[in-house]
C-alpha cells in the first residue's frame, strides 16, 4: 500500500485546514438539524394522533358540567308591586306586570324605563292575576265583578343601522281592550288561570263562593279583512265537593287539561277538551300528610306538571296510559335537593328543565328527563320575589317586593345529558313505562329528545356477535388447516387471496349485502339454513369416500390439497341447497318462510342481522385468519416434531400441542377481529333497517353506534347536546376498539417473547 501524505494531490482538503473545519462544522449543523427536525416532526405526528382522543374528550366533557350562575347587575328600583316578570330572548328587555293594573318594560341591565303601560280596566278592582305559558307571553287580571282582562307582550326587533339591534316592546290585546265576563254570577275571581294559543283563549277561575268557572273564546278572523274578527264563546262550571279549598289552578297550553290543587294536598285532574262538559279523571293525593303543595307549574310542552312542596321537594307528574287506554297521573320523578318550601318554579321554554326558588332564597337548577340537579345555590335574601327565565334559558331576572332587580347569566348548556339519560331506562313523557329509546330529533320544538345510547350499543354488540359467530369458526379452522396441513404451494396462493379480501372496501360488501344477499336470503331462507347443516356432513362424507377411493387415484393428489378437493363439493352443496330451497319451503313452511315466521311470532325484516352477520363475518374473516395463521405457523417446529415422534397423530399434535401454544395468538386475533366488527360502519348502515330496537332476534335489524353517527352527524347542530352525544358515541367506539386492540397487542407481544425463548 502506498503511504498517502498531505503533499499528495487529493480532492479532499487537509483534515485541519480551514475548509475542512468549516465543512465538518456544517456537516455537524446538518446532522443536528436532521436530529431535531426529525425529532420535532416525529413527535408532532405522534402528538397529532394522540390529539384525536383528547379532542373527542374535549368535545364530550361539557356534557357533564353542572350549571353556573354569574350575576350581571344588581340595582334598586321603585317597582314594588310586581306580580310577574319576563325577560326577552336577548336578555336585554324585561317586563314587570304589576298588581295595580299597570306594566312596565325596562332595560334589564340598567332599569331604565322603556315603556309604561296602563291597562284600560276602568275602575274595576283587581282580585287575581295570571300568566299563561311563557312562550305565549300572555297575562291576565281577574276582577271583583267576575270579569277578566287579557293582554300579551310583544317585542318587535328592527335593525335600523344594519347590524345593531333595536327592540320595541309593546302590549297587545288578543280579545280586544275590554274585560270579558267569566263568571255569569258576578262573583269575584279569587284565582285565575288562562292560556291563549292559536286564536283560542281559555280562562279557568275560582270564585269567591268556591266554584270553578271555565270560559273558552275562539277568535275567528274575517275572510275579507283579517283585522276584523268575531268571538265564539263556550263556558261551563265545575261544582266542587264541599269544604274543598282550592289553592292553585292551572290550564295547559293546549287548553285540554285543567289541574286544581286544594289545601289538603289533592291534585284534581280534569279533561276539558269539551269545554261544556269537563270530566274529572282523577283526584289524587299529591303529598304525604303534613306536607302541602306550595307551587304548581307546567313543564314546557304542557304534558308534565311540576309540584313544589312545603318540604322543598319537587315532583314531576304526568298522565300515563294504562292497559285499558285510560290516563292516570303518575309521580314520575322527584327532586329532593332543597329544604325550604318551594315558592316559585320557572320552566325552561325549549328544554325540559326548570328552576325552583324556595323560601330560604335558595335556587335550584334541574332537568327532568336526565333526572339531574345541576345546581342548588343561595340566590336571594328574601323569598318575596318574582323571577323569569329568558327563552334561551341563559338569563334570569328577579324582582323582589322592595324593588331590587337582579340579572344573571346562566351557563347551563347541556342539562339534558346524564349517565342516567344515556345508559339507564328513562321514563319519557307520554310513555307507559321507563324505556331505552334513541330518538334524537323531531319537528316540534318542545319535543323531549331521547338520547339513550343503550339501544345503539346493543345494536353494535348484536352485529359484532353474529359476525363473530360466522367468522371465528371459519377463520380459525381455515387458519389451522392453512398453517399446519396445507401444502406450501397451495398455501402461497391461498393466504394472499384471503388476505386481499381485508382490503376490499366495506361499502361494496354493504351494497352486496343490502341489494344482492338480503333478497336472496329472504327468498331462500330454508336453503341458507340447510347449507349450515348439510355442508359439514357432506364434507365428512366426502372425506370418508376419499379413503375408499383406489390408492392410485388418491396418490395422484398429494396430502395438503384437501381444501382444493372440497371446493367443488362446497359449490355443489350451495347450488343444491339453494335450488331445493323452494321445495323445502313448500314442505315445511307453507311456501313462504318469512311469512311463516311472522305467523309464529318472530318478526322478519328483509335487511336483518343474519345478512349482516354473514357479510360482516366475511369482512372479519381475513383479519382473524391472517393473525391466527401467523401464530400457528410460528409455533416452533421442534415442539410438533417431538410430539409426532412420540406417536401422536397430526390431529392430536394439533389440538394438544400447537393450539395450546398458539392460543394467545388466536385470542388476540379474535380480539382484533372483534374490534373491526364493532367499528364497521358501511355494512351495518347498508344491510340493516337502522331501527334502534333492543331484540336479539336474528331476523330483525338494529341500529349500531357507528351507523348512527354516519346518519346523524352531518345534520347535528354544532355544539348542541345531540352533536356532543354523537361525539360521545365516537369516543365509546374509540375506547372499545382501543382497549380490544391493546389487549390483543400485549398478548401478542408476550407470545412473541415466549416463542423466542422456546
Amino acid at each position, binding site marked *: 500500500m502506498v503511504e498517502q501524505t498531505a503533499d499528495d494531490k487529493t480532492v479532499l482538503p487537509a483534515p485541519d485546514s480551514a475548509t475542512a473545519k468549516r465543512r465538518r462544522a456544517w*456537516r455537524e449543523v*446538518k*446532522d443536528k*438539524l*436532521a436530529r431535531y427536525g*426529525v425529532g420535532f*416532526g*416525529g413527535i408532532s*405526528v*405522534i402528538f*397529532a394522533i394522540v390529539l*384525536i382522543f383528547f379532542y*373527542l374528550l374535549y368535545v364530550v366533557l361539557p356534557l357533564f358540567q353542572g350549571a353556573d350562575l354569574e350575576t350581571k347587575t344588581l340595582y334598586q328600583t321603585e317597582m314594588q308591586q310586581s306580580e310577574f316578570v319576563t325577560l326577552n330572548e336577548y336578555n336585554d328587555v324585561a317586563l314587570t306586570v304589576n298588581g295595580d293594573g299597570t306594566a312596565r318594560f325596562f332595560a334589564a341591565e340598567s332599569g331604565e324605563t322603556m315603556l309604561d303601560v296602563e291597562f284600560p280596566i276602568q275602575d274595576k278592582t283587581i282580585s287575581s292575576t295570571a300568566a299563561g305559558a311563557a312562550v305565549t307571553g300572555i297575562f291576565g287580571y281577574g276582577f271583583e265583578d267576575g270579569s277578566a282582562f287579557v293582554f300579551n307582550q310583544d317585542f318587535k326587533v328592527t335593525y335600523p343601522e344594519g347590524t345593531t339591534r333595536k327592540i320595541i316592546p309593546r302590549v297587545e290585546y288578543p280579545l280586544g281592550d275590554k274585560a270579558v265576563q267569566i263568571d255569569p254570577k258576578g262573583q269575584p275571581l279569587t284565582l285565575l288561570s288562562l292560556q291563549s294559543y292559536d286564536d283560542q283563549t281559555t280562562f279557568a277561575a275560582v270564585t269567591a263562593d268556591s266554584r270553578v268557572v271555565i270560559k273558552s273564546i275562539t277568535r275567528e278572523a274575517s275572510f275579507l279583512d283579517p283585522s276584523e274578527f268575531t268571538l265564539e264563546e263556550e263556558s261551563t262550571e265545575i261544582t266542587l265537593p264541599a269544604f274543598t279549598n282550592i289553592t292553585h289552578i292551572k290550564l295547559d297550553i293546549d287548553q285540554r287539561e285543567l289541574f286544581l290543587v286544594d289545601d289538603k294536598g289533592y291534585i284534581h285532574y280534569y279533561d276539558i277538551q269539551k269545554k261544556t262538559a269537563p270530566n274529572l279523571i282523577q283526584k289524587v293525593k299529591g303529598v304525604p300528610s303534613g306536607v302541602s303543595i306550595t307551587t304548581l307549574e307546567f313543564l314546557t310542552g304542557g304534558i308534565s306538571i311540576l309540584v313544589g312542596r312545603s318540604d322543598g321537594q319537587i315532583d314531576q307528574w304526568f298522565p300515563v296510559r294504562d292497559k285499558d287506554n285510560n290516563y292516570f297521573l303518575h309521580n314520575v320523578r322527584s327532586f329532593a335537593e332543597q329544604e325550604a318550601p318551594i315558592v316559585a318554579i320557572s320552566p325552561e321554554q325549549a328544554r325540559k328543565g326548570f328552576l325552583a326558588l324556595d323560601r330560604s332564597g335558595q335556587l335550584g337548577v334541574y332537568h327532568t328527563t336526565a333526572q339531574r340537579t345541576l345546581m342548588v345555590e343561595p340566590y336571594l335574601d328574601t323569598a318575596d320575589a318574582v323571577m323569569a327565565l329568558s327563552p334561551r334559558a341563559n338569563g334570569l331576572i328577579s324582582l323582589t317586593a322592595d324593588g331590587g332587580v337582579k340579572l344573571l347569566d346562566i351557563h347551563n348548556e347541556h342539562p339534558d345529558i346524564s349517565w342516567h339519560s344515556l345508559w339507564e331506562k328513562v321514563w319519557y313523557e307520554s310513555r307507559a313505562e321507563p324505556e331505552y329509546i334513541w330518538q334524537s330529533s323531531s319537528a316540534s320544538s318542545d319535543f323531549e329528545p331521547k338520547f339513550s345510547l343503550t339501544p345503539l350499543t346493543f345494536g353494535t354488540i348484536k352485529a359484532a356477535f353474529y359476525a363473530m359467530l360466522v367468522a371465528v369458526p*371459519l377463520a380459525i*379452522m*381455515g387458519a389451522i*388447516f392453512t398453517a399446519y*396441513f*396445507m401444502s406450501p404451494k397451495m398455501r402461497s396462493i391461498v393466504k394472499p*387471496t384471503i388476505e*386481499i379480501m381485508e*382490503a*376490499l*372496501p*366495506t361499502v*361494496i360488501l354493504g351494497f*352486496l349485502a*343490502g341489494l344482492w344477499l338480503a333478497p336472496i336470503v329472504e327468498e331462500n331462507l330454508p336453503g341458507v339454513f340447510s347449507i349450515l347443516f348439510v*355442508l359439514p356432513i357432506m*364434507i365428512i362424507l*366426502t372425506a*370418508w369416500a376419499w*379413503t375408499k377411493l383406489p390408492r392410485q387415484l388418491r396418490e395422484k393428489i398429494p396430502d395438503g390439497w*384437501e*381444501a382444493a378437493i*372440497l*371446493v367443488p*363439493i*362446497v359449490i355443489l352443496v350451495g347450488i343444491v341447497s339453494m335450488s331445493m330451497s323452494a321445495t323445502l*319451503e313448500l314442505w315445511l313452511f307453507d*311456501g*313462504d318462510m318469512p*311469512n311463516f315466521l311472522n305467523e309464529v311470532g318472530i318478526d322478519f325484516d328483509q335487511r336483518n342481522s343474519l345478512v349482516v352477520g354473514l357479510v360482516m363475518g*366475511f369482512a372479519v374473516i381475513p383479519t382473524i385468519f391472517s393473525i391466527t395463521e401467523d401464530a400457528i405457523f410460528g409455533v416452533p417446529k421442534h415442539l410438533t416434531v417431538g410430539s409426532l415422534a412420540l406417536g401422536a*397423530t*397430526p390431529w392430536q399434535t394439533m389440538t394438544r400441542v400447537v393450539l395450546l401454544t398458539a392460543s394467545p395468538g388466536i385470542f388476540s386475533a379474535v380480539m*382484533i377481529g372483534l374490534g373491526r366488527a364493532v*367499528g364497521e*360502519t*358501511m355494512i351495518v*348502515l347498508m344491510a340493516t333497517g337502522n331501527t334502534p330496537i333492543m331484540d336479539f332476534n336474528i331476523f330483525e335489524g338494529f341500529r349500531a353506534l357507528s351507523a348512527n353517527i354516519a346518519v346523524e*352527524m*352531518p345534520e347535528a347542530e354544532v355544539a348542541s347536546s345531540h352533536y356532543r352525544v354523537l361525539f360521545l358515541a*365516537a369516543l365509546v367506539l*374509540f375506547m372499545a*376498539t382501543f382497549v*380490544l*386492540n391493546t389487549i390483543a*397487542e*400485549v398478548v401478542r407481544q408476550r407470545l412473541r417473547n415466549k416463542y423466542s425463548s422456546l
Partner: protein
Amino acid sequence: MKQSSSIKTWFDSGKPWVWLNAGAVSISLVMVVGLLLLIAVRGLSHFWPADIMELTYQEPGQETEILIGEKVDHETVPAQRLQLSGLELPEGQEFARRTLLKVGNRDYYGLDFRWINDPWIADINYPEGIMAIERREWGHFYGYLANVKQQGEVVASGDEAWDEFQARLERSNSLIQQIKGLEKTEIGKINHGLEQLRLDGRRLELNGVEQGSLPYQEIEEQRKLFDERYATLREELNGLYAALNRDQITVRMADGREVEIPMAKVVHAYKPNGMGIGEKFGQYFHHAWEFVSGEPREANTEGGIFPAIFGTVMMVIIMSILVTPFGVIAAVYLKEYAKQGAVVRLIRIAVNNLAGVPSIVYGVFGLGFFVYFIGGSIDEVFFQAKLPAPTFGSPGLMWASLTLAILTVPVVIVATEEGLSRIPRAIREGSLALGATKAETLWRTVLPMAAPAMMTGLILAVARAAGEVAPLMMVGVVKLAPALAVDNIAPYLHLDRQFMHLGFHIYDVGFQSPNVEAARPLVYATAFLLVMIIVILNLAAIGIRNRLRETYKATES
C-alpha cells in the same frame, strides 16, 4: 362390525376434523372468489348491448299485449308467494317461473321493469329493427324508428331513416358539447367574476368605506362589463339551443303508439339484434369508455362516473402528499432517533392500535376538528367577506384528504418501521465507520434501502383511503358536485370544494336513488372499478414486499 370399527379408527385418527378444517378454507375461498366473480360478471355485463326481445304476452282475463325489452333476470318461486302478492295462478301449481323484463320507456309505462310469468309468454323473437335509445331523461327507450323530422317535416323514413338519424344525432351531440363548453367555461368565469365583485363590495363595507364612493363605482362599472359579456353569450347560446331543437325522431313503441323524441334528448342509439359479435364488442367498449369518462345523469343512475373517479384520485393524491413525509418522519424518529425504551414501546403499541380504530371515529374527529374548528378559524381570518357562507368552514376536499391522511398514517409508519428494521446493522455501522454523520447515513444509505418499504406503506395507505367511505360522508363527499376541484378559474385547484367519490357513489346510487333497480348495473360496474383499483394496488404492495424480502435475504447472508 369391521365396518363400524374402521369408521371409529378413522374418527380417532382425527382425519375427519382435518377435512372439516380444510372445508373452512374451501368455504372461505369459494366466498372470496365467488364475490369477486359476482362483481366482475355483473359489473362487466353492464356495458354489453344485450339482444332485445319482442314477445306476445297473454295474461288470463286480459288483452294480449306485445312487449319489447331486455331479459334481466329469471327465477323460480313457490306459487304461494305469488298468490300472496295477489296473482291468480291455477290450483295445484307449486312453482311459478317468471322473467324480469326491462321494458324501458319509463315516461310512458311508468315502470322500466316488469315481472312476466313464463306460461303466458308466446312468440319470442328478435327483430333486427328494434333499437335501444339511451336518453338524457327517463332512461332507455325501446322501439322501432319510424322517421326523422326536421322542424316537424319528415326528412327520412323507412330504411334511410336510421342513417339519417345517426348523422343528425352526431350533429346534435356536438352542439350539446359546444353548449356545455360555453356554459362551463365562459359563463362560469362570468359568475366567478360577479361573485368576486360582490365579495369586493362586502370587503369595502366591512372596512367602513363610504357607500357610493369611488371604489364602489369601479365595482359597478366592472359589473356592467360582465353583464354585457353575459348578454352576448346568452345570445350565442340561444342560437345554439335553437339549432339543437331542430330535429326530432318518431318512434313506434311495442303497443303501436308512435311518439316523438327530440334529438336533443338522445345520447345515442343502437340496434343490438342486428349486430355481429365484432360490432357488439365495439359497442361494448364505447359504452365502457362513456361510463369511465362521462358525466352522471338522472340523479347519478345513468351516464358516467368521471367526476367520482376524478374526485377519488384527487383526494388520494393530496392524501399521499400529506401522509408520506409525516409517516416516514415519524417512523424514522421512532426507529432511529428516539431512545428505545418503555415509552417508545408504548407509542408503538398506540400507533399499531390506531390502525384498528374505526374509520367513522376519524370522520367525527375530522368534522369537529378540521372542518368546524380549523376551517372555521381560517374563514374568520381570511374569508371574512364571504361569511356567513363558509369557505373552509364546511366539508371539502382539503379536509377529507387530511382526515384520511390521519387515518392512514399508522399504516405508513408501521410499514416504514418494518423496512427500517430489516436493514442490516452492518450497513449502518459501515457508513458510520467511514465517518458519515448519522443524518448522512440515514439520507444516503438507510432511507434509499427502505424506499420500497415506504412505497409498500404508501400503496397500502392509498388502497385503504380509496375504499373508505364512512369518514368521507362527514368531511367532504357529496352525491353530485357542481364542479370539479380543478378548473380554469384561479387558483385552479379548489381545495375547499366538495367532491364525488367512487365508494360514496356506490352507497348513494345503491341506497338513496329513487330507481334502484335501474341503477343496479351501474353500481355493479362502479364497484367492479373500485375493486379492481384496490386489488391491483394491494397486489403491487404484496409484490414489492416480497421482492424486498428477497433483496434483504441476500444482504443478510
